[in-house]
């Protein structure tokens, strides 16, 4: 319909893809984007359309690129239950409390579930340690770094 050769269209698409992904990856400003494409010698109208295309799709492209980065399994959710062991093959008449948990993680879109157990003392220790971890983000040091990095 466009009356252009297949190769030209392919190159055109590849060029557009490269332009948009590189721009999104680097998160360049509008001004920088406009300056960059000016050298291509397109018409003003075309430049405006390209800029709009960039701005409209930038967020989505960035979120897709974000998923390509190396990642550890990420937390999904945790289920827990309280158990008390009353007896075992080697010892009768016990009262051994434990917390059994199912930790659900996502590894590159594949959900995994792991069953874990802990005793009450360790549970309290875990809570204390992780609360300390959460507290760190509110500290001035972290806030300063987050502010200055941008």
């Amino acid at each position, binding site marked *: 319909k466009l009356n252009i050769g297949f190769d030209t269209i392919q190159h055109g698409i590849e060029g557009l893809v490269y332009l948009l992904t590189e721009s999104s*990856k680097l998160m360049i400003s509008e001004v920088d984007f406009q300056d960059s494409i000016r050298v291509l010698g397109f018409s003003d109208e075309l430049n405006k359309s390209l800029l709009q295309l960039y701005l409209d799709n930038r967020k989505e492209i960035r979120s897709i690129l974000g998923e*390509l*980065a190396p990642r550890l*399994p990420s*937390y999904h959710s945790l289920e*827990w239950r309280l158990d008390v062991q009353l007896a*075992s093959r080697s*010892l009768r008449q016990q009262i051994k409390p434990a917390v059994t948990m199912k930790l659900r993680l996502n590894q590159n879109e594949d959900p995994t579930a792991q069953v874990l157990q802990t005793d009450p003392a360790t*549970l309290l220790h875990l809570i204390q340690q992780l609360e300390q971890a959460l507290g760190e*983000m509110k500290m001035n040091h972290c806030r300063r770094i987050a502010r200055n990095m941008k």
Partner: protein
Amino acid sequence: ILDDPDLKDIDPTVLKHCHAAAATCILEAGKQRADISAISTCLEDCKLDKERIEQFCTEYQKNKDALEILLGSIGRSPLHITDVSWRLEYQIKNNQLHKTYQPSYLVTLNVENSDSGSHPDVSFSCTMEQLQDLVGKLKDAAKSLERATQM
């Protein structure tokens, strides 16, 4: 036991039998949480004299707690969490995406296997909100533990 100088005059086979018998008796008593009178009665039925029974029971009483702890630790259970480490990091960029500016936590749960004693730790990353969710759930579990102990 076979190397003990005091016992070198006794036939090793007899020694082994005695050892096995004593061990079986002790383990069974521990498993059933038998009290001293039950053990005494049992030993009386085996025709041991009073002095030996008393000696046995005293020694048993001394080591009873350690024995019960040992017996209680035998058995299978899911991977047991022993500790947790965490790391707070701030991501600036990666090769796919620059200017990411994302804080995230890396949490590692140190885990022990009752059988082999070692197991790769469980690590995962999470955002602050996810960590808050996790801590919230752990606190719920702790609260319900507390309520259960008060019943």
